[in-house]
């Protein structure tokens, strides 16, 4: 029952008065309205545009958002209205649905936006009215194709192909020649041989030169052997190709039924039949006919040409129009042939000997060919002949535009698919950049966060301006969340992008608790590994060992060595979870650029005691202890994508024998670390 007539329900119930007197048994009890509210106006504020409607209008569909109590979640107490922060344009359609019972789909609206709104308001798209349903379905299908395209390509891009067996690889190679060079080669070779085969068929019949005896021979008979060899070669290639396709096809039965395979078979069969039948001279007539089928090889080109395929598909889809064309032409031919026959019956030596004989004249005239081998001689014949030719033009011109428009539509659809594929690369690149942008933004802000905190300790405000980057509240909360995750797992994020070919890691630098004067003052640090692939790992291990560690610090060295060995020992592990532990080795993994980091720390507590402190997860607690640490980082950023700065911090220099470092001794603290 449509909602629009819900208002007439009281009338329908009243009309039941006609049944009461004739009823034999008592009537059931009527349902009572529990809270019979007076109908009130509801204000719906959608992004500032106010819509008002009766409460009962909305309650017509109780299983949607507006019709159920779900809308109470959006009730704004202050303004006594329901506020929805959604698109007011689409809301107009949705509210009209409640009012009229018909959901319309506006053409200017984007299909995914519309679907989202429908989902939000709990309305199923299936109830879109007939007037708009076709349009909606078409656009939805288009959208789905586009998404499927994207997904497919993404899967391909990521290289996460499940390992295909030989059959599947072969099939893929056959269907999409662009997947591998071998497939491409195969594609071109078969195309070449198809062309060769067709050309030989054609040239075979050309008369080339005379043979003594003044007989004109076609080339086929003159160079019979050569042509036979060519033919054999082509057929062998085609046979091999067909057999390979048959082997690789996922469903052999379906493959054998498909049009292309039938064409393949028809193309190569004549040869084999000819081989078998050469002995029998009787059937040589049939043999000649069989050779005609060799021309079907030209249809094999449709695998190579998309336009041909589109044409074939168009003709198939316009079958009804073509049928109509044929039917109307046949009708007209019969009519006019009969008329012409009887009109020309009187004239002597007329070529119109019978109605079927007149068919030829009618066809030639209607298609405006006009060979002139049969012409009417009587006046009546000429009159009817002219009518015939005029009507022929009309009858043929009528169905042709339909076919043409079909072809155009299908062709453009294909073009659209092609264009999408071409733009896909650019689109995916954009998506990837956006993704890395956000993750690198996180790393960037983390670095800034560290520096900010460090600066707070030192109380210096000089460098604050170029460090504090304005991040929105949401961003900072998001970053905090990622940070917490890092802390929980003890791992940290890496920006990993094959395009950028940069891997960086973040390294935490923190100081241990009490400033202890010890020769081995080293700042504790933690090394984070994540998402490292083996080679890089090795490389970096080697780098580290090659770095110029002033080697007088034994604990540091040992720690370093311990670090590197432990790093290297972990090389073999594929899992990368890291103990947030005793690996005081830094890792700088920017493959392309030099990063120079100056770290100055005024107080360097000892390492030995700091070992234990390394186990502590939070560095926040430790940082404040280094009161005068002053960190500056100078980082050369990689030129490619935006917002990406490699981070790395080198190990602070194994300290010079001075237990206390102050800012004045900056030079000794600077370590240039280069990787690669």
């Amino acid at each position, binding site marked *: *029952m449509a909602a629009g007539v819900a208002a007439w329900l009281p*009338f*329908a119930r009243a009309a039941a008065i006609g049944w009461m007197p004739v009823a034999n048994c008592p*009537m059931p009890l009527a349902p009572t309205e529990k809270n019979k509210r007076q109908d009130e106006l509801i204000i719906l504020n959608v992004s500032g545009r106010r819509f008002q409607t009766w409460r009962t209008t909305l309650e017509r569909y109780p299983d949607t958002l507006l019709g159920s109590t779900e809308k109470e979640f959006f009730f704004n107490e202050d303004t006594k209205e329901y506020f929805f922060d959604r698109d007011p344009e689409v809301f107009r359609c949705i509210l009209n649905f409640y009012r009229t019972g018909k959901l319309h789909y506006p053409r200017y609206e984007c299909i995914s936006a519309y679907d989202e709104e429908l989902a939000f308001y709990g309305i199923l798209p299936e109830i879109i009215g007939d007037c708009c349903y076709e349009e909606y379905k078409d656009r939805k299908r288009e959208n789905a194709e586009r998404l499927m395209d994207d997904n497919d390509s993404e899967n391909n891009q990521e290289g996460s192909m499940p390992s295909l067996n030989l059959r599947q690889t072969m099939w893929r190679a056959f269907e999409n020649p662009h997947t591998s060079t071998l497939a491409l080669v195969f594609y071109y070779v078969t195309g070449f041989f198809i062309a060769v085969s067709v050309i030989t068929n054609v040239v075979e019949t050309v008369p080339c030169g005379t043979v003594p005896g003044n007989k004109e021979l076609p080339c086929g008979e003159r160079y019979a052997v050569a042509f036979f060899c060519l033919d054999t070669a082509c057929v062998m290639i085609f046979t091999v190709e067909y057999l390979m396709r048959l082997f690789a096809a996922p469903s052999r039965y379906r493959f054998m039924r498909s049009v292309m395979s039938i064409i393949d078979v028809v193309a190569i069969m004549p040869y084999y039949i000819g081989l078998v039948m050469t002995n029998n001279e009787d059937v040589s007539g049939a043999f000649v006919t069989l050779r005609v089928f060799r021309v079907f090889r030209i249809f094999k080109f449709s695998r190579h040409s998309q336009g041909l395929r589109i044409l074939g598909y168009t003709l198939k889809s316009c079958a009804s129009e073509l049928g109509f064309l044929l039917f109307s032409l046949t009708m007209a031919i019969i009519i006019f042939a009969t008329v012409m026959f009887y009109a020309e019956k009187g004239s002597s030596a007329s070529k119109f000997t019978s109605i079927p004989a007149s068919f030829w004249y009618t066809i030639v005239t209607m298609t405006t060919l006009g060979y002139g081998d049969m012409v009417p001689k009587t006046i009546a014949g000429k009159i009817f002949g002219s009518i015939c030719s005029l009507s022929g033009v009309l009858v043929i011109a009528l169905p042709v535009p339909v076919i043409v428009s079909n072809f155009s539509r299908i062709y453009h659809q294909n073009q659209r698919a092609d264009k999408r594929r071409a733009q896909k690369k650019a689109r995916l690149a954009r998506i990837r950049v956006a993704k890395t942008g956000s993750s690198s933004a996180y790393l960037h802000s983390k670095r800034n966060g560290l520096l900010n905190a460090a600066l707070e300790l030192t109380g210096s405000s000089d460098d604050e301006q170029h460090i504090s980057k304005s991040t929105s509240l949401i961003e900072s909360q998001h970053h905090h969340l990622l940070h917490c995750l890092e802390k929980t797992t003890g791992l940290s994020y890496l920006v990993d992008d094959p395009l950028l070919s940069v891997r960086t890691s973040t390294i935490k630098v923190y100081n241990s608790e009490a400033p202890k004067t010890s020769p081995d003052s080293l700042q504790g640090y933690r090394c984070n590994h994540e998402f490292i692939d083996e080679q890089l790992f090795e490389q970096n291990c080697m780098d580290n060992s090659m770095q110029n560690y002033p080697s007088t610090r034994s604990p540091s060295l040992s720690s370093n060595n311990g670090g590197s060995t432990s790093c290297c020992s972990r090389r073999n592990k594929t899992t990368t979870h890291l103990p947030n532990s005793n690996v005081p080795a830094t890792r700088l993994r920017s493959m392309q650029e030099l990063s120079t980091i100056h770290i100055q720390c005024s107080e360097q507590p000892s390492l030995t005691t700091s070992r234990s402190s390394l186990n502590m997860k939070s560095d926040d607690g430790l940082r404040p202890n280094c009161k005068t640490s002053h960190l500056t980082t100078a980082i050369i950023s990689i030129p490619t994508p935006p917002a990406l700065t490699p981070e790395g911090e080198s190990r602070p220099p194994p300290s010079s024998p001075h237990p206390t470092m102050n800012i004045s001794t900056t030079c000794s603290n600077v370590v240039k670390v280069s990787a690669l």
Partner: protein
Amino acid sequence: MRSRGRKESLAESRDLDGSYDQLTDSVEDEFELSTVCHRPEGLEQLQEQTKFSRKELQVLYRGFKNECPTGLVNEENFKQIYSQFFPQGDSGTYAAFLFNAFDTDHDGSISFEDFVAGLSVILRGTIDDRLSWAFNLYDLNKDGCITKEEMLDIMKSIYDMMGKYTYPAMQEEAPREHVENFFQKMDRNKDGVVTIEEFIESCQKDENIMRSMQLFDNVI
């Protein structure tokens, strides 16, 4: 040219400008009808004439106008609206009877006043009023008495609304039997017709009917 009647020249112009088309003739006619619009009398007058409150009249009018923007319901429309409540059966005949009952001035269309007047009797009238309204519905030719044929028609139309697929399956003779039952109950003097007095009297004696008449109190 001048001698031609206006009608003829109209017809000719229709031919010439091609707006007249055998296939789409009916559509053209409908366009003319839809420009006719009817507005009901004022709210106060309707309040006086019927027993509905102002708010109820407003609600009723809004529903009425939604389905019939022109303000008039013709029989086709009426049947179509009524059939939406009975998707399974064929309610056309019963709707036709209802239409005749509502259309008190018999001008072929129900205006809002007719509509509301009828509803007022059924929903807000006394039991006797309701019974006489029902009698009016049954009396198809409005001659003051119900014959067996009229009752049979009504009965058949009610059974038609059930549709073909019922349990237990409908018998051919069921309407006729039902009519016999009815006449046995209602026809006091056994003269083959039921007059209004007989009808009201018999109904008042029947408990079930009295109770069912009270169902209409809470419809709006």
